[in-house]
């Protein structure tokens, strides 16, 4: 099987499983394994509203039109679900990012959340802030960390594509006594997230956010599809290892 055929097969399996799980979800209750970060995030949003503080979301260098497009969409989904809850407050969430193409996505995500809550009076497009990215993204991290520190932030939620610059953002969040939830689709960023965050989202956990934060049956079906694909890959690896050993 070549790469093209494999891609079509994986897409077909993912689509079939998503739709099948959607139908199953309507007939019987399916349980997903608990993910601590998705339990904590709504609590942090509620705390931020009560204490009239902001939540800082950072999408890092996730960029639409590049290999991190779907990370950007996954992170935007989390931003939307939590901004829906935060939009009742006067304090607009802060979104920082380093890719200009992701800026309209971030602004539109916030706008939709405020529109949903019919609180457009408190929406500000400048709540999404772009920082130019230097050679190592560290200038972005320094700028975003400084902005978050000045903005009475209750928690920092770092989702998407980060390298080691996440350590700078994480250290600033911890130093200012902010909660920290972190994820990266790069291994080096993921290692930093594991060591610094109160709760880290690992690997594919970002992409199932919609299902865990009041998701629709189809979004919950996506989680089942992901589990099926994961087990297929595990079986494939075991079979290949056994074949190689024999």
């Amino acid at each position, binding site marked *: 099987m070549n790469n093209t055929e494999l891609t079509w097969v994986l*897409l077909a399996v993912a689509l079939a499983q998503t739709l099948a799980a959607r139908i199953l979800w309507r007939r019987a209750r399916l349980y997903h394994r608990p993910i601590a970060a998705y339990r904590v995030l709504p609590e942090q949003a509620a705390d931020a509203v009560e204490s009239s503080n902001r939540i800082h979301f950072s999408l890092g260098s996730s960029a639409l039109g590049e290999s991190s497009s779907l990370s950007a969409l996954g992170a935007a989904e989390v931003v939307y679900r939590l901004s829906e809850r935060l939009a009742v407050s006067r304090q607009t969430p802060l979104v920082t990012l380093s890719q200009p193409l992701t800026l309209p996505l971030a602004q539109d995500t916030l706008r939709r959340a405020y529109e949903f809550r019919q609180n457009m009076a408190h929406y500000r497009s400048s709540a999404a802030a*772009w920082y130019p990215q230097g050679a190592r993204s560290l200038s972005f991290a320094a700028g975003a960390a400084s902005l978050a520190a000045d903005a009475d932030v209750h928690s920092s939620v770092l989702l998407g594509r980060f390298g080691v610059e996440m*350590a*700078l953002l994480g250290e600033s969040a911890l130093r200012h006594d902010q909660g920290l939830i972190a994820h990266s689709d790069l291994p080096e960023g993921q290692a930093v997230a594991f060591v610094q965050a109160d709760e880290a989202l690992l690997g594919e*956990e970002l992409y199932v956010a919609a299902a865990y934060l009041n998701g629709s049956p189809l979004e919950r079906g996506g989680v089942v599809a992901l589990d099926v694909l994961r087990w297929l890959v595990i079986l494939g690896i075991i079979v290949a290892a056994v074949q190689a050993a024999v």
Partner: protein
Amino acid sequence: MATNSGAQRHRLLNFLATVIVISSGLVTLIGLLSDDGSTAADTARFLIQLVTVIAAVAVLAGLVNLVAVHLGRFVRAERGWPYSVFVLVVALVVGVLRILDRAEVWSGDLEGEQISVRVFESVQVSLESALAALLVFFLVFAAYRLMRDRVTVWNALFSLTVIVVLVGWVPFEDMDVLRDVRDWVVRVPASAGMRGLLIGVGLGTLTVGVRVLIGQDRSFRD
């Protein structure tokens, strides 16, 4: 009445956005999986080039956003506003330097020089290097904090691995065993874990991709 027509317009726009996203996504996917030179591949390449052009325009939008954010902080005298003034001044200075570079106004020793690039390299790269040097301390302190706050098997394993790898890099004599252990840790478990994470990310993007392709992603649904 006006609300109804507004809602209808909103629904129509969403429908159009969904149609555009699904068709562009499918055309690009088919094109990327087709042979070079085929119509599908050429169409996909055209769509990707379109994204590149939009990205260039988006940099301008980003610059406007940067100025708006920091101007707003300055006008409202928010905490840290002097830094915002500094950002605005530096942005202006670098912009002017770039224009002067393009106009080739420098003479004497500076003739033919790209001053904006020189400023960038001497300031930005130096600062980023200094920040990069700090990262290792942040990470070691974070590992210490991890063990102080939550002692679990996984955290202990993580900290032990960090110590073994760091000590393994120290060029002591008669430390071949530690160096071998370090090499094994990097080559086998770290590499396997990294691949596992990347496979997970790949499968995650696949499921989100499917949701986008069937028009169920919230970005253009609501």
